[in-house]
């Protein structure tokens, strides 16, 4: 078995020296794979003067040449035979810069496992209970190549699926948020005795909640999973505790069942909140925080930009990804999980790096 498959088979938050060793091995394998399979990535590594034989000790993993995220929006990077690509994702942007991420079946299978392991560790997977979904994202039947839609699909895969309602409708020329249809869907779900999951952009959820007079009682097996951030509506952002409380009251679920996740479509690994509202780094990836000026790795607790490393990608060389997202790492969490805690503070850059939320929020404000 390849090291990467062994790594992906491991429990999500079992960090330790064994995990590090496995991670090193998986990264070595995966780096060689991209280096040999993607000439453009090898070219980039050549500029940095770094080759597969340079990955020797665990610390070398962080030296694997990172590609700055915007470079994936400018150029096409595919590892191996492009005909094996099963899914091409784009992140939604408005700046004319669209990320294209090329995933083959291997990569898709791996990320699906990763997501299941992570949510499994939080007790949020249940293939037995049929669950109704309200997705505040684009309808994947129309927007199937958008990263957000794909992540919804992964999330709905955590349970057996009952009904699904997509809140953002395609009217043939444009997307729009269909508020009344959301209320109707919730009303319908309330008549059934099934858990409910509300998934999507927090600003949309807040919007639909604010205009809805009704209170629900979906119970402790129901969840809200938000992602994508507030972006363009940053000045209207509701602090998380208030968001959790109000949304919890609205749907009749414990506030701790309102969970945010942070992820980047180029990277894929989701950083999900535990019941304490803290995001965790699973064993399938490593996160370093770097100073954006010097690019030195910063110690825990200091603020910088995230550098993500993961060996699961087979067809896309985002093995080492430098982002402009700002945050810091902490060693421990009150939840007791043995995994570094990741704190997201914002998305950096003066002309803001356009995350996937902006276009959707423009829909909201129109």
């Amino acid at each position, binding site marked *: 078995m390849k090291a990467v498959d062994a790594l992906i088979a491991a429990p999500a938050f079992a960090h330790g020296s064994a995990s590090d060793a496995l991670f090193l091995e998986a990264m070595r394998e995966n780096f060689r794979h991209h280096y040999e399979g993607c000439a453009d990535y090898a070219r980039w590594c050549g500029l940095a003067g770094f080759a597969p034989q340079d990955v020797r000790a665990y610390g070398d993993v962080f030296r694997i040449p990172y590609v700055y995220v*915007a470079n994936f929006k400018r150029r096409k990077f595919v590892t191996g035979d492009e005909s094996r690509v099963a899914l091409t994702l784009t992140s939604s942007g408005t700046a004319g810069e669209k990320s294209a991420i090329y995933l083959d079946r291997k990569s898709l299978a791996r990320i699906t496992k990763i997501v299941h392991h992570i949510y499994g560790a939080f007790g949020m997977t249940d293939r037995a209970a049929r669950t109704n979904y309200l997705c505040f994202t684009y309808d994947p039947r129309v927007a199937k190549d958008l990263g957000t839609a794909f992540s919804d699909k992964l999330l709905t895969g955590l349970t057996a699926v009952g009904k699904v309602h997509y809140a953002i409708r395609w009217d043939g020329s444009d997307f729009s948020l269909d508020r009344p249809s959301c209320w109707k869907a919730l009303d319908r779900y309330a008549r059934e005795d099934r858990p409910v999951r509300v998934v999507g952009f927090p600003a949309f959820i807040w919007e639909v909640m604010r205009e809805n007079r009704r209170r629900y009682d979906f119970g402790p097996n129901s969840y809200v999973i938000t992602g994508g951030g507030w972006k363009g509506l940053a000045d209207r952002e509701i602090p998380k505790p208030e968001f959790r409380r109000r949304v919890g009251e609205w749907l009749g679920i414990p506030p701790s069942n309102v969970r945010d996740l942070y992820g980047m479509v180029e990277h894929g690994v989701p950083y999900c909140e535990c019941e304490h509202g803290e995001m965790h780094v699973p064993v399938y990836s490593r996160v370093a925080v770097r100073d*954006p000026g010097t690019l030195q790795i910063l110690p825990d607790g200091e603020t910088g930009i995230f550098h993500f490393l993961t060996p699961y990608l087979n067809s896309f060389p985002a093995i080492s990804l430098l982002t402009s997202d700002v945050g810091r790492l902490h060693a421990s969490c009150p939840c007791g999980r043995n995994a570094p805690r990741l704190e997201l503070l914002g998305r950096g850059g003066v002309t803001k790096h356009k995350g996937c939320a902006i276009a959707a929020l423009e829909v909201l404000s129109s």
Partner: protein
Amino acid sequence: MTHDHYLFGRFESRDLTAADVPALVAEARAAQAALERVPLTTLLNVLDAAAARWRDPAYAGRRLALQHMPEVVGFSKAMVEEALDALCGVMQRASLEKQIRLELGGRQALDGWRFVPAYQGYLRAQALGVVLHVSAGNVFVSGADSLLHGLITRNASLLKVSRADPLFPLLFARSLREVDADGAVARAVAVLSFRGGDAGLERALKAAVDGIVVWGGEEAVRAWRADLPGHVRLLGYGPKYSVAVLTSQGLLSSALSEVCARVARDVVLWEQRACSSPQVVYVEETDGDVLTDLFVDELARALDIAAEAYPPARLTLDEKIEILRHRELGRMAQAFGEAVVLTGRTWTVIRERSTEFRFSPLNRTLYVKGFRRWDEVLEPLRSMRGYVQTAAVLALPRELRTMATDLARAGVDRITELGGMGTGTPGSPHDGSYQLQDLVRWVCIESPRERFDLGEHLAPASEASKKWARLQDLLAYAREHSPFYAERLAGRSFEDYAEFERLPFLDRTHIYHNTPPQGEGLLTGPLEKAYVFASGGSTGEPKFSFYSYEEFSEVTRLLGEIYQVAGVTARDVVGNLFMAGNLWTSFIVANEALEQIGCVTLPIAGNADIDLVLRYMKLFKPTVLLGLPSMLIQLAEFVKARNVKDVHIRTMLYGGEHVGPEAQEFLRDALGCETIISAGYASVDAGPVGFQCPQSPRTVHHLLYEYQFLEIVDPESGKVLPRGSAGEIVVTNLNRRLMPIIRYRTGDLGRRVEGTCPCGRGGPSFELLGRCDDVLRVGAMSIYPEEIESVLATVEGVSRLFQVVAERAGAKDRLIIRTESPLLADVQRIAKPPIEEALAKRVEDALLERNSELALVVREGWLGDFRVEVLPPGGIPRIRRTGKIRKVLDLRMEG
């Protein structure tokens, strides 16, 4: 966060809401009405005084700014200093005056009504009223800069601070309050702090003010423009983009290190955050990429050097990330062979092959692109039309014109040289228009029946306090810039006017010894853009006076107005008979003055052949003549003697000497003059001092109050005399800076005249009473006793004692040189006349031989009579009290 404001003179801390706006704007309107009554000079004085404070390293405000601004805006201390100096540069009087002159055609339109000859009507630059300035955070002094332009156009000025810098505008407002004794300027200012996006407050402001000046991003400009009432003028100085272009010829003809040092300065200044900072440098390539390679390597060095003088700003995380993004995209391009990224500790240079348009993330990040076709530069600029501002160009002069034209067509507003991008030249338009023009309404009076303002600007109502402020300013300037005054004024305080009266006088020997070619101590700067004029001499050596072109045109403007007060109109044909050539002033200054009137000018010159003069007069029939009395009288004699018909000189303007009643009578008779009037009391060294109106009696002149400061002093003791006493006229020229004239002894006797002139003009008048020193103006020449003395020294048999006498001889002057001879002491009465005659002949020959000017005057007949008298010892009358001989006796004004 508490919001601190400066409201029309007081500081307050509170939140502003829409409800505050009506009271705020009402207060601003009242302050604006008061500002309308403040003369521009006072306004400029206040700003100039504030500039002087800010320049002073010991000034508390400056110290506070240097202490806190690095923290507030992130600039290094050196950059904060640079910004303060730039602000002082804009704010000092000379810059503002220049800007006013270039943008509004002079200060007149701001102080009242300006008559425009080509328009034959009046224009006035009327303040908009209450103007809100919305400042940006990029260069912290720009808000103050905007505000002071609002003030000099007499708008009540409200400044909304930027979130990035709530501090400096308050420090600036406080400095205005400190220097503004009257308070009207400091009370016309408010500095407001409120968070952008308060829709109610912003709507209320939009509806209440008369103009809004917005500096900053597109969003800010759009937000303030949105829903703005139609009558409110919006000046949106939005985001702009600037570049530098280097042609291969330009680059090859310059020193590379110098070129790169200049580009580095442009990059480093304001951390590239100004609209004028370069984001891309285009380098023309002829052969491969050699030039770009050389340039980029040297630029890297230059940026490191620049960082020593100007340490980089403290960058925010976002700014660092933005730079990182460009570096990383560049590096990837480098892997693909499309770019080269050079980085230093403080800077990033990305050399790119692509012609794609680039924004720099600023903060010392520069794109460099080689180009082969000019369109590779123009096309990206065209794509940014409306957002392009400055292009710094390094090119050969012959390349510049077509390049500049193409750049202008592509949308560039300002073309400048490398190293000059970040600091503008006063008087340049900003973003395609003139800032001051945008802050006023031009109001006109069409076709007025008659002019109502003649002489108004020459002698406005007086106010002593302002005059003293201008004197203080002059003294400070002279001490700072002229070695002569530095020494002379060293250690003196200019706090109190009494000190002024203790300053030493300036006389013509000081001028002689401290101006080129003898020295240059009197000059305040290099001799450039200037006129050199002969201003007589002493002991036969010529002496010169120096005027900058600007000072010279100020004189022509004054004289133009003086001539009009005297009665010259646009319908006149004017013969200029002043003396031309020989570094003389009067002829050329008169021509230029006449231009301003719009009349027809005949530049004949008094030293032209008399037959030609008469011929021109016949051909063009002048209605006015300008010239020296001796010339004019001689002309009249010719007209009379030859019985020339058809000569009707309505108005005669004379200068240099006085024209007595007999001469006036003769001129009236011979030339048909209706008005014979002074063309102004002036000297080359002092400049114009006074003027006459048709009601001015005899030798009474109105003082050019705005231009000269006049004192009457005791010629012996130098003490300032009480009003009404006769004494020597001492003047201080308030405007001249190249060669400051402070307490200059004119040698003319005069007396202040009390009471108002029947013409109604305000301001002091004075009467000329003749010469009190040893120079005699006679027959269009100056006689210096030293010269006579040096000639007498060469004549055997005569004493060194002498007296020069001027008398009236009919319409002309008689000149008598008296001396004594010991040979006549004991001579028999009978032998006396031949000896006298022989000695007198000897003296006369010597004088005519040595003094060519005298010879000319005698030969041309400009003197009515010239003779030498040799007397026995004691024959020259002595002053009874002192026993001294009065070397010069001017008897022409008597009777």
